[in-house]
């Protein structure tokens, strides 16, 4: 193990979701290219495990930590601990409810993204008809923000009627089964707006199986699978979080901070999401749109 090279710990929720995988890979690649060793760790949305990973990162004398955290409040203590140990943290994708603890919080603007998705959804729906909302894990902050974004926007269209909203815990199989059931209850729903892409995929599979392939499904994240689905014009649109960009920025700012002691940016930096739909899907490649 090289002693000279400094170590950057990259801690993400779960490698099973392509979104986080892309996030981790991007940060990893960037950090390496900037001449750092990396340590990629996974907390599976368990704040306790995350806390222990921080301990380990400290034990490994990491120079910096890039983190997609496991809870806006449950993470603060860990980040503080790292700071106390002289290790700066750079947060991506999810914020924490404290400032001045992390050096940078680079988040995609979930609320803005949600409104973006909702606008597109309303347009596709022709501003009228019954729809269903699939919510993410209800203990997850982003699930709440996105749901709020959807509802704030869609509630402005009187003819759009939300007939059901269920949590499918970010989970594909669960979304499938719940959609199956909901279809029976509301056979003539016109659209489904989903808190993330995995749930959107599950829901669409159920709709298609029920011969309702024409139902409008809109997701969130901009995962490759959904991009494919959009190309095959099944799922109509998704909101792309520029997560690759975020991760790279985080790595760059970490590098700069370690060299100069400052990032030159203010702590909270939010990057707007972009809509992916049949018009621009051609330019899509793994969580980024080529200009």
């Amino acid at each position, binding site marked *: 193990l090289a002693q000279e090279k400094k170590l950057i710990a990259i801690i993400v929720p779960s490698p099973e979701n392509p979104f986080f995988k892309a996030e981790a890979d991007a940060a990893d690649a960037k950090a390496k290219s900037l001449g750092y060793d990396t340590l990629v760790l996974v907390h599976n949305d368990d704040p306790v495990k995350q806390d222990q990973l921080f301990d380990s990162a400290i034990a490994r004398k990491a120079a910096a930590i890039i983190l997609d955290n496991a809870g806006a409040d449950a993470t603060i203590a860990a980040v503080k601990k790292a700071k106390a140990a002289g290790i700066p943290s750079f947060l991506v994708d999810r914020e924490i409810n404290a400032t001045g603890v992390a050096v940078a919080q680079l988040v995609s603007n979930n609320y803005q993204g949600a409104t973006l998705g909702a606008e597109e959804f309303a347009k596709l729906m022709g501003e009228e008809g019954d729809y269903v909302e699939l919510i993410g894990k209800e203990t997850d902050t982003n699930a709440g923000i996105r749901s709020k974004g959807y509802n704030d926007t869609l509630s402005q269209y009187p003819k759009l009627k939300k007939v059901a909203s269920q949590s499918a815990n970010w989970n594909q199989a669960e979304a499938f089964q719940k959609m199956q059931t*909901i279809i029976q209850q509301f056979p003539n729903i016109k659209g489904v707006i989903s808190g993330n892409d995995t749930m959107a*995929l599950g829901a669409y*599979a159920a709709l298609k199986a029920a011969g309702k392939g024409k139902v409008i499904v809109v997701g969130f994240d901009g995962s490759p699978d959904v991009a494919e689905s959009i190309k095959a014009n099944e799922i109509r649109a998704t909101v792309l979080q520029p997560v690759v960009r975020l991760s790279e920025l985080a790595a760059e700012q970490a590098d700069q901070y370690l060299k100069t002691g400052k990032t030159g940016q203010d702590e909270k930096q939010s990057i707007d999401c972009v809509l992916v739909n049949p018009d621009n899907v051609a330019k899509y490649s793994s969580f980024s749109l080529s200009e």
Partner: protein
Amino acid sequence: MPTSAATSTLPKASGLSLGVFLFRLRALIALMVLILIFAILSPSFFTRENLIILVGQTAINAIMAIGMTFVILTGGIDLSVGSTVGLAAMTSGLLINRGIPIPPLGVAIFFNIPAIIILVLCLGLLVGAFNGVLITRFNVAPFIATLGTLYVARGTAQLSNNGATFPNLVGKPELGNTGFPFLGDGSIVGIPIVIWIMVLFAAVAGFVAGKTAFGRQVYAVGGNERAAELSGIYVNRIKMAVYMICGMCAAMTGLITASQLVAAHPAVGESYELNAIAAVVLGGTSLAGGRGNIWGTIIGALVIGVLTNGLVLLGVQEFWKKVITGLVIILAVVLDQLQERLQQRLSLNRA
């Protein structure tokens, strides 16, 4: 004396078969009650469509639970079914999208869907055999052996595509491996394939457990392992067999979920084991082994299925779902116990 003994045993016997009947019936009662409640609370519950969906959803758990029943009848337990589901799903995805690559030639072998199904089921048998060997040859406690397999199988599933999903499992006509989704969304005479599979598995399993020598010996091993050994039953073979059956059933579930989602997600099946075991125990099979039957398990699975489906229809909030599910599981069993005691009380008063 002979006569007296005969008479004294006869009522016992009849009372017994009646008891067994009631025993099955009990889970059935819990089921009826649930159905009634939901039918009242939600108009769209007791519709043909929803019932079909409901049974279809139950099937996934039921098929696992059928395999689990054999294991539990021998007094064992299998915690690895959930991971096996994931592993099977990923394998089917791999075989459809990638085939089996042969590096030297730089080519990959692709199979048609029937072949793939068979291969995946064999994989399930293999996982079961792995558990079986640990338990019979190295006599590791089933709980710990299958717990280990739980981790290993899940890890392997995730490694199989480096954590990514195998998307869009429709196959390619030129590779002759199309038609996989049919397993999940196809239906025959208006009944989904999934349900047919469950019925088939249940029928075969019920027959095997109830009517064949193998079935009797499974009960024997669960009832008194040493006696089974001494009576000349190949206890280890029986145990191997039940874990392999269990693995195969889990693999079947894996195939179905992959086919329904038209994608193989490495996290599929996480914590399914608990639902499967719950179904078995709700169905009246004793974790100590030797007592229970497949029909009970099916009813147990239906109880869970109805509960899940109904709570979704009612739009019950996620957290309340958990609470209610837990309470229903407990209540169902408590009811059993109370009824059993009641029966004993009665038989005493008859004295």
